[in-house]
């Protein structure tokens, strides 16, 4: 991938921000004084003589910082080249607020990064604006209940065309991405480090899948390590990109709470999954509920919130192009698939895979808990097969044995 001159200037902008003391206040001052019209003008600014800069009327601190930057411009350019090299190697593209593909949700907020780096399917950003998006975040060591709910909500919402945005952490984040990918829905992961930096490394496999079928976003340049202080800033982007935020589980001091407060301050709906008041790791979420967040009861309320956000967005941005209508991956599609598996199970039961049998078992159990004899009859499987599948489901926590009957996991 070769980068255009404009894109090179985008990289340069990030390099300035990362390697010098030129922070957002300096940049804003330059904008306010009309020195630059776009962040790309920073590249040209560096070429100008210092005495010219004195005339712009910058405050003392800004002036000092800008001169420092221009004096060490060699270092900045080296960093910029390094970024571009890594980006090129990893197929990372750059999007800035000058591009049409820059997310509308970022554009309408202040304090969003001017340049973002992406890896994966950039079309998802458009889809995200057209079909809406929801952030699903929560604890890294979440309870079974929260994970189960995450799985359900993420797959239901993504089957409605809503993009699932999360942070690719362990626990809830991971589950949310996985559920969306499983149902061929779209998902965006926003990382705290550079887009090529897989963190945590346990999620390597998931990262690859997201690069293949979803999108990785970061405001950090390629090669940047995820530092501790970047995480809250990353949470700000998760809240900013999505139309509403779902908090699945949050402890008293969870970083998830940052995401919630960013979302709330950006005027977006925050849904919190209710949980037991005696469950320690749910304290933060319950506090949010106390503060007036919406209770996450069903996908319907989430879909309402998202569609309202879409309507508002379309009214405010009349030029917003409509995403070509995708085939809705809704409940009928799920039903069709079940029907297909059923047919296959009837005609050629040997060809049905274990996972397909599991789908059938879960479908049977979705109405009410059943005992093993009933399952045998309903599926027409011999006892030893059923028991093998059920124990597998039990082991993976999808099914539990209660009162001699097998039930879908709930709590």
């Amino acid at each position, binding site marked *: 991938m070769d980068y255009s001159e404009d894109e090179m200037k985008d990289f340069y902008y990030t390099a300035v921000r990362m390697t010098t003391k030129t922070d957002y206040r300096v940049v804003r001052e330059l904008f306010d004084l009309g020195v630059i019209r776009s962040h790309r003008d920073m590249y040209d600014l560096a070429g100008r003589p210092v005495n010219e800069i004195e005339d712009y009327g910058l405050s003392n601190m800004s002036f000092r910082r800008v001169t420092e930057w221009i004096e060490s411009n060699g270092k900045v350019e080296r960093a910029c080249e390094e970024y571009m090299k890594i980006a090129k190697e990893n197929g990372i593209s750059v999007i800035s607020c000058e591009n049409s593909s820059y997310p509308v949700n970022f554009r309408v907020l202040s304090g969003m990064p001017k340049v973002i780096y992406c890896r994966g399917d950039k079309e998802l950003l458009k889809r995200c604006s057209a079909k809406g998006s929801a952030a699903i975040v929560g604890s890294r060591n979440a309870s079974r209940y929260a994970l189960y709910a995450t799985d359900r909500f993420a797959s239901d919402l993504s089957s409605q065309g809503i993009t699932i945005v999360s942070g690719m952490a362990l626990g809830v984040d991971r589950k949310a991405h996985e559920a969306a990918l499983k149902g061929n829905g779209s998902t965006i992961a926003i990382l705290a480090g550079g887009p090529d930096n897989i963190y945590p490394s346990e999620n390597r496999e998931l990262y690859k899948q997201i690069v293949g079928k979803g999108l990785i976003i970061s405001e950090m340049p390629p090669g940047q390590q995820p530092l501790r202080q970047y995480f809250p800033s990353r949470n700000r982007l998760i809240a900013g990109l999505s139309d509403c935020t779902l908090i699945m589980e949050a402890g008293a001091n969870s970083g998830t709470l940052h995401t919630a407060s960013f979302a709330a301050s950006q005027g977006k709906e925050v849904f919190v999954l209710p949980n037991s008041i005696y469950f320690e790791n749910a304290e933060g979420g319950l506090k949010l509920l106390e503060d007036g967040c919406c209770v996450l009861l069903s996908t319907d309320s989430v879909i309402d919130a998202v569609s309202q956000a879409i309507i508002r967005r379309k009214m405010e941005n009349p030029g917003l192009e409509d995403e070509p209508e995708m085939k809705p991956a809704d409940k009928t599609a799920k039903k069709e698939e079940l029907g297909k598996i059923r047919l296959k199970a009837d005609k050629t039961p040997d060809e049905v895979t274990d996972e397909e049998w599991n789908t059938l078992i879960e479908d049977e159990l979705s109405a009410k808990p059943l*005992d*093993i*004899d009933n399952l*045998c*009859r309903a599926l027409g499987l011999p*006892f*030893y*097969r*059923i*028991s*093998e599948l*059920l*124990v*597998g489901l*039990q*082991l993976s926590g999808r099914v539990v*044995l209660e*009162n*001699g009957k097998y039930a879908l996991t709930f709590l």
Partner: protein
Amino acid sequence: MSGKPSVARIYSGFARGTDCVISELEVSVTPGIPTFSVIGLCDSSIRESHGRLVSAISSAGFKMPKGHVTINISPAYMKKSGSGFDLAMAMGILFASGQIRFDPERKVYAEGELSLDGNVKGTPGAALRLNKARNSGFSCILIPEEERISARCTGFEGQCVKDLAEACSVFGYKGYTPEHFDLGNIVQYPAERIDISMLKGQEKTRRALILSAAGFHNMLLLGSPGSGKTMAAGILSGILPPLDSDETGEVYALYEAVDGTSARISGERPIRSISPDITPGKLLGNTVSMTPGEMALANHGVLFADEIMEYPSKVLDLMRKPLEDREVRLFRDGISYVYPANILFVGAGNPCKCGMYYEPGSRCRCTAGTRRRYLNRLSGPFLERIDIFSEMRSIGKEDMALMYADGKNAESPQIRERIAECWAMQKERYHEKTFNSCFTSANPADSMRISKDILEYCSELASKGLFSARGYQKTLRLARTIADYEGHSDVLKSDVSEAAVFRAHEL
């Protein structure tokens, strides 16, 4: 006559529990005023024999010798009882008094009770005694005609006699004409059994019965009244392979000792049903009369305990040791008596007080507390003897209709053959008659062909709470049986997961 008494030796036997002792009878006749004494810790049933002997000897055309008749029955330190010594005593008297010529080189065994007219009658415990006598190197064995069936069950050589006169003729003009006794075709097999296809729609129980039979795994069935728990025990007898000839003899011998010659001879494995009002004596055996209890009588077969929740916990705990050791041990006068009890234990009961816990809908009206208290009647150590747990429910309408519609094709015979194959596999694997359920070894995983990753999988299941940690070994054993039944030479993951289903219970 000289002062040296004339002594004759003859042999007979008596049973002690299921153990048999061959005793030597020494009969001496010395001149003097007629007296009759029997020594050797004999009870009155033996001492009373004097009257029968006098009358029977004269009925046979001989004379009771005039003089001191002393009979010493060895081993002298053991208590003996029973009228089975009569024939041997009479023969001994006739030998000693010289009325019948007797070759001291000959080892003669004789048993049977005499009637006043000289007829010889059988006594209980014949099969046990003959089994012992068979292997003790006698040159001549005489038994009552009535014990012919017992003789056939033990498979030995000897001669049946009707009366004392006939017994004496063996040493006279007729000579000893032994015949060989064997089972032949006297073993009966019941034709009608409840077929396993009656368990339509109760797949788990069906499978549980098969596996329980295939590996001799103790089983517990919990279900509502009318869900077919009692029927399940009947079905079990139909899928258990028949007794082999040794076992038939063993089983008959015990039954004969209890019921006399009216005992059945059957190739079918015994199914002993017990009820909650059973006394310890009836269960383990009476320590006074030394009658075997139900656990001994169920040897090589099934002990079915219906309404297991209603048993006093004391009785259930009495069963623990025999179930573990596969034998019942009774103590009397400081001597232990061992009855083999290689049994398949099947317990059946209600899952809660009202019995409806597993029924569809919410028909159970027990609270969690009531239920727990109810289930607590089964102690942990007792449950540890159980390998398979299965719940049962009353069957639905469709299944009921199906059951009677195509109830003709019996499935039990095929399953029975497959189980017989499983038994053969286990015999080959353990080089003795041991089942998966009771095989003990320092490292069972090796001989059971269970690989390391299967063991790990099993511990993973245990750690996820699918069964208790102490059920780990049981699960592996059951998995081995499943592998045998499915024809897997190594235990597979799927075998372990199925075994886990049978270990999952809420007790």
